[in-house]
């Protein structure tokens, strides 16, 4: 028997036209692979929008966080239209406004400064994941230490 744990779907912009699209993409992967692995999955935005029924069904059942690179908010609008209101939304340009020294230029390979900004965005996504799962920030680390103690 499989125990189904709560998962959060991260629907991220991956737009190639602007650096914020790349930041969204990198930040989302950081959450999936490093910050909240096992608790988050990503939903392929183009497929979701193009009519991928598996993606849409997942987003109807599990909570979603949308990560948009710009004010067009394709991920948020698409999620609302096809699966329901996202549990939380993040817009990279909003975070950028708070970080006056972040100067984004790259659309493919991020500079060290851009990586730092992507990590900040990832932390904000991870915080939203914790909120959506009804936990406080840092609870994931506690889960890991509990698992180690149990072993």
């Amino acid at each position: 028997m499989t125990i189904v744990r709560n998962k959060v779907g991260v629907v991220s912009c991956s737009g190639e036209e602007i650096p914020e699209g790349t930041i969204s993409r990198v930040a989302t992967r950081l959450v999936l692979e490093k910050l909240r692995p096992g608790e988050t999955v990503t939903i392929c935005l183009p497929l979701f929008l193009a009519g991928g029924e598996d993606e849409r069904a997942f987003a109807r059942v599990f909570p979603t966080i949308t990560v948009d690179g710009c004010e067009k908010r394709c991920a948020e609008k698409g999620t609302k239209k096809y699966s329901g209101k996202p549990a939380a939304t993040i817009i990279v340009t909003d975070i950028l406004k708070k970080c006056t020294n972040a100067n984004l230029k790259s659309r493919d390979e991020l500079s060290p400064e851009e990586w730092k900004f992507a990590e900040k965005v990832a932390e904000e996504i991870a915080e939203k994941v914790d909120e959506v799962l009804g936990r406080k920030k840092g609870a994931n680390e506690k889960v890991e230490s509990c698992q180690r103690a149990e072993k």
Partner: protein
Amino acid sequence: MSKSGKVAIVACAGMDKALGSVARASVFKVVKELRPNNVELVCLPPLLAGVAPHSELIKSLPVITVDGCAERCATKLVVKNGGKIRGRAFVPDSVKKHNLTPDSASNIGPNGEKLAEIIAREIAATIDKLLAENR
């Protein structure tokens, strides 16, 4: 065909698969290194959201699509938006043809880089052909 001397590229942006990352890497190579002055890179999701400048671009320029999986979202969306596809790349076919498998979605690795380079050169050759038709 292209009066403006440009071609639009619409690529898979799938972030849950390594081949989506290869598609993305290949178009960046075209835009940055191979044909920087001849390409309009068109973001895929806004085409679905009906953002006007994006759908107008693919109606006015010849389009090359780069798909990362059998769902072929880029191709489907360009067709749905009335764009005229003049060239297509399908990353899974290139994987088989060149026997190069990328590592992962977040790090395509040396094989993924090689594959992206090959696909980028194929796209560049297609751009040259399309632009030559107009000369």
